[in-house]
């Protein structure tokens, strides 16, 4: 499965609104849409570390890094490029 698809599935698993309200695109800000709870902001930290095997530190804790499928993917790619 593509990484983008994995991220999307993770978000979908954490959606707190009805299916009708939960439609989102890869660039949509999921926090502004209000489709996830604040617990998601805590879960996503563990998720990206475990699923993509990257170390997330305190400086990475910016809302912008995790607010959309696209931004999470870019964040993961950025972290990988630094690690290389």
């Amino acid at each position, binding site marked *: 499965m593509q990484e983008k698809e994995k991220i999307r599935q993770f978000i979908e698993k*954490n959606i707190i609104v009805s299916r009708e309200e939960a439609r989102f695109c890869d660039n949509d800000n999921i926090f502004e849409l209000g489709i996830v*709870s*604040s617990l998601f*902001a*805590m879960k996503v*930290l563990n998720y990206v570390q475990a699923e993509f095997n990257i170390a997330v530190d305190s400086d990475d*804790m910016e809302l912008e890094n*995790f607010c959309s499928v696209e931004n999470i993917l870019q964040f993961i790619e950025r972290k990988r490029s630094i690690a290389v």
Partner: protein
Amino acid sequence: MYLTPLNIKPNGNEPEYFDWEVFFTDESSSRLVNRLSFEESRRLITKARAHLKENKFKLAFILNKMMLQLLKGREPRQPKILELGAATGFLTRWFIEQYGGSGVLVDKSHASHQAFLTLKEPLQNTTYLNKDIFELDLDPAFGLVCSFGLIEHFKDKKPVMDIHKKFLAPGGNIIILVPLDTPLTRTFMELHPEMNLGYRELLSEKEFKGILSQAELRILRLECSFGYSYDFIGALCTHK
């Protein structure tokens, strides 16, 4: 990018010269405020309130950041958590999400308890005690005792600090977070009087450290938040 609006010019005209002497004076500031119409004042306050408002997502990320900084190299494993004045248990959620474990949340407010019960994602492995923190009958078995925005509501800090220590297991840690007395926090509180639900002190870093020290706590790490609508400070401590 956010563009700030143009300055309001005195008498609607461009100043012929810029007077730096006046620029920083209270007189200059009050002259500007006096010129604002009722509608302009209302618009200004509405806008300022919108800029400085609570945002649970932003708070969660800033809290992520602070907790990672506080606990770096001291990450607990499966902690047994006691959260005092817990409201909906924001800190306990964070700990359980990151490190597993279990929690006891205590808050005497029925509204907080109801809010907890109606959370869209219920918190696992937790017990909620809808009680006064001074009426608890628990074993001193908690590896982590924490509070966020509690001690500043008490004029006499000793009893509330004693409760933090009372149920701490030997070798356990205490984490306390409070709003920090900064111009930003004062502005936030002034703009959001609805947040002032009772007696509240804004503590400076020095005052906060003094309270921890008076309670015979050893500060292991101290961190200040950055970037939220108000500033807060957190300390990781042990009992001396």
